[in-house]
């Protein structure tokens, strides 16, 4: 009964905090438009580059133009969801430990990680990513005349959710390093930049990079592997998805807890 009531409580709080956060959308409309606009510009550039590349060759490493668009669009879905709920981790990495403000998550009667993330629930930039991603997926699927079977349709949201959890875990892991180094922004930034590779077919890359993106920082499981499954109906590594997700979440939480326990609030 207790886990159920806890889950209900956190779900209710998430809903409530998200509702409060919606204020930001109205209060910082300009920020929102700028953020969404910048993101859109970036995706347009990415699409343009892909378009130019495919003007030279109709097929690269077994992928067609529309399939690459689908992959790019799919990669934005977990990224957008992740950004909507975990953006505060950037602030943790950059300054919350350094300036001593992290203390406030330890004096609230909710899980400190939840408390931290809740300060930026529904971060506006995430909407842009999610909508752009959904648009691209829709457009590419339409041009490919994709007809997913029932299993694919049912699995699709689960795949996006696991991808989101993987991204959030990698972010938590690197942001938590700030408990040791006081500022882990460079590490988090580097890890996040690597994630950009996941929006393109991994077949393009050197095997060492492919291995890195699959097993070390498993970004492959957030886009390439699930998108391959949805496009071609096969992805040999897909069965690993749940194990990888669960393992990574556990690792991130363990590092987070160790970090919180050694946290020393600076200053008076």
């Amino acid at each position, binding site marked *: 009964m207790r886990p159920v009531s806890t889950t209900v409580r956190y779900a209710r709080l998430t809903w*409530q*905090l998200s509702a409060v956060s919606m204020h930001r959308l109205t209060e*910082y409309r300009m920020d929102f438009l700028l953020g969404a606009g910048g993101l859109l510009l970036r995706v347009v550039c990415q699409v343009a580059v892909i378009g130019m590349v495919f003007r030279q060759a109709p097929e690269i490493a077994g992928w067609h133009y529309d399939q690459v668009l689908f992959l790019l669009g799919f990669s934005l879905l977990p990224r957008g969801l992740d950004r909507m709920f975990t953006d505060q981790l950037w602030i943790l990495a950059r300054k919350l430990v350094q300036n001593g403000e992290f*203390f406030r998550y*330890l*004096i609230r*009667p909710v899980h400190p990680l939840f*408390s931290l993330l809740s300060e930026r629930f529904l971060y506006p930039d995430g909407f842009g990513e999610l909508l752009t991603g959904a648009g691209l997926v829709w457009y590419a699927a339409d041009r490919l005349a994709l007809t997913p079977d029932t299993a694919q349709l049912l699995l699709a949201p689960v795949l996006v959710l696991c991808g989101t959890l993987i991204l959030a875990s990698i972010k938590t892991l690197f942001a938590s390093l700030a408990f040791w180094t006081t500022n882990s922004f460079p590490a988090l930034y580097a890890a996040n930049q690597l994630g950009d590779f996941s929006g393109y077919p991994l077949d393009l890359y050197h095997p060492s990079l492919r291995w890195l993106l699959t097993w070390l920082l498993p970004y492959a499981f957030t886009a390439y592997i699930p998108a391959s499954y949805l496009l071609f109906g096969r992805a040999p590594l897909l069965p690993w998805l749940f194990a990888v997700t669960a393992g990574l979440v556990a690792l991130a939480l363990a590092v987070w807890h160790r970090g919180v*326990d050694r946290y020393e*609030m600076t200053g008076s």
Partner: protein
Amino acid sequence: MIVAENLVKDFRVHERGPGLLGSLGTLFSREHRLVRAVSGVSFEIPAGTKVAYIGANGAGKSTTVKMLTGIMTPTSGRALVAGLEPYRERRRNAANIGVVFGQRSQLWWDLPVPDSFRILRGIHDIPDAVYRRNMALYRDLLDLDALGNTPVRQLSLGQRMRAEVAASLVHDPKVVFLDEPTVGLDLVLKEAVRELVNRVNAELGTTVLLTSHDMGDIRAICDGVLVVDRGEVVHSGSVHELLRTADTRAVLFEHEGDPAAPTEAIALIEARLDGASATVVDGGRIRVEYPTGRWTSRQVMGLLLEHFDVTDCVAPEPDLESVLRRIYTGGRRPAPRPEAVG
């Protein structure tokens, strides 16, 4: 309600050589020394009391408060707040306590104050009646509505502090830790914050632990004091008892006579009262300061009445600030023993 048993907190400070080579060295060697911020503090604060925890900068006040609030784990020793070890059961402890760190914010930085309270209501599961009662009180005393819909980050320090204090109390905590709660407030608002804390203590029996450099806060709120110095409690008792440890007292008086020539009077007093000093203060009064170990107030008054035609006389309470200054700077030397009157 609050128990500290031999609380110790050591910090690791990494040694780093000078210059670039020194910085690079820290990457490879992990040499460090331990700095003891709190060395075996023990005390007990009964439920419903209002205690000031005071000490000079670097005396280990904040570190102790951080352990009592569960933010940091002690190196050794144990703390109990409302029956829980705060750093072990942070979430359960958080429901019991309220915290204000004057230098830092716990509100939602980019949201308006009313939103912060709405969120606090949710995470603390505050019953409707309690929430309404408290918000009405804050509106009344702190004029919380005046903060409007401005995001917290755009508020002035004074405006923010009002909201911080209210936010620490909104869930009716059993214990409230106030670290510099009136910093940045004008006199009227300082009064309001003190009144709020006193009212909550009187009506709900909330235990208060205050650390402040503002003597006014301590006098207006607290009935007990714990003085820490170099990580140890050196005085524990009521404010009154602390004041009685003062080693200098003062008497101010006015007298009939030649106000233009106070030097004679001063010379007379200083000659008769060994170790005392007399000065002319505003309004032509003479202030006599004397060591309590050497003279009793009766002897001083007797002398004044004998030699002057006294028209007005006051013996102010010793000043808390100077009592504390003596403790901080003079260490713990005992007061000199009274000697026979010569």
